[in-house]
C-alpha cells in the first residue's frame, strides 16, 4: 500500500506489476525493473553478483547499499510478522482488498485478516 501512496504523493502513476515480478518494465518507478531484479537476485542468491554490478553502475554504491539494506530489512520484517501470527491491521482490511486481489495475496498461506 505504501508504494501506491508514495506514488500518489509524488504525482506518479505506479503500476503494481513490478511487485509480482521484474519483467514488467519500470512501472512508474525510476529504475523499477532493475530494483525488482535486485530484490529477486538477493532472494534467490544465484545472480546477485551480476545484478549488484548493474545496480552499482546505474545507481552508484550508496544506493546499492541502501537497496541491500531494504531487502535485508524486509527479510527481517516478514519473519517477525509471519512468526508471530501478525494479522493485517483492522483499518487496512477493506482498503487493501483490490490490492490483495491484484497481487494474489489472499491465496498466501500467511493470509491473516483482523476484521476487528
Amino acid at each position: 500500500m505504501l508504494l501506491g501512496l508514495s506514488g500518489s504523493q509524488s504525482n506518479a502513476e505506479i503500476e503494481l506489476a513490478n511487485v509480482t515480478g521484474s519483467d514488467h518494465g519500470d512501472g512508474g518507478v525510476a529504475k523499477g525493473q532493475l530494483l525488482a531484479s535486485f530484490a529477486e537476485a538477493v532472494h534467490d542468491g544465484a545472480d546477485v553478483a551480476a545484478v549488484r554490478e548493474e545496480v552499482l553502475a546505474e545507481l552508484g554504491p550508496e544506493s546499492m547499499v541502501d537497496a541491500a539494506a531494504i531487502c535485508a530489512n524486509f527479510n527481517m520484517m516478514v519473519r517477525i510478522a509471519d512468526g508471530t501470527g501478525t494479522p493485517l491491521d483492522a483499518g487496512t482490511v477493506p482498503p487493501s482488498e483490490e490490492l490483495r486481489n491484484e497481487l494474489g495475496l489472499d491465496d498466501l498461506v500467511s493470509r491473516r485478516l483482523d476484521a476487528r
Partner: protein
Amino acid sequence: MSTLYAEAGIPVRADLALAHQQTVESWAAPGDWWSASERLAIVNEVRRARAADELPPWVRPSTVDGLIDAGHVLPAAAVDAVWRLTNHSGTLTGEWYQQAIDEGLSPEQYVELVGVVATANCLEVFAAAIGIDSIPLPVPAEGEPVRQSVAGAAVRSHWVPTADVRGPNVGKALTASPVSVADWSRLSDAQYVPMEALLADLTWNRGTLDRMQIELLAARTSLLNECFY
C-alpha cells in the same frame, strides 16, 4: 563509530554500520529469556539453515540423522523453529506455533527466538547482497537473562502474547520481549524509513533511493517471501 564494514570496500553509512554492530553485540548479551550463549546459538543455526540443502517445510531438522548435534545448547523445538522461520516463514500456521509451545518453549522464549532469527536473517541477507562474508560472532557475555514477563502482556490479536500498546500490528509483534523490540526497531530505522516518517512523510528518503524505489524493494521482497502482511 563502528568499524564493522571498514574492510568491505563499499561505503556503508556510519549509522547503518552502527545499527548492525549494536545488533551483533545484542546477540552476544543475555536477553529476556535466553542466555548470550543460547542467543548466539540461534544465530549460528540461522546460518546453518541458510547454508544447508533446503528441507521441505514439514521436515524437522532435529529428526534428520546427523544434522543437529545431540548435545546442542538449544532444545530441539527451538532448533526446529529456527530452521522453519529461516527457510519457510511464509508457511507458518497457528497450529505450528502451538506445537512449538506444547513441546516446551514458553511463549516469551518463542517471541525472543523470533526476534533473534529475524535480525540474524537480516544481517545475513545484507552481507550476501553487498558481497561480503558473514560478520564474525563475538564471545558470549556472562550473565543471566532478565526472565521477567512484560506487565499486561496477553494473547490479543497475534498468536503470541503482546503488550497492550497502540500502533500497527507488526509493531506489537515482539512486545513480549523488550530486547527484541529494541533490536528490530533500531535496524528498521537505519535500513528502511524512521518510524516517525513512515506515514507522516511519504516522500522521505536519504538522498539515494526515492521513497517509491524504497517501497518497491520492500513490497517485492515481502512477496518473494510470501508474506501476506
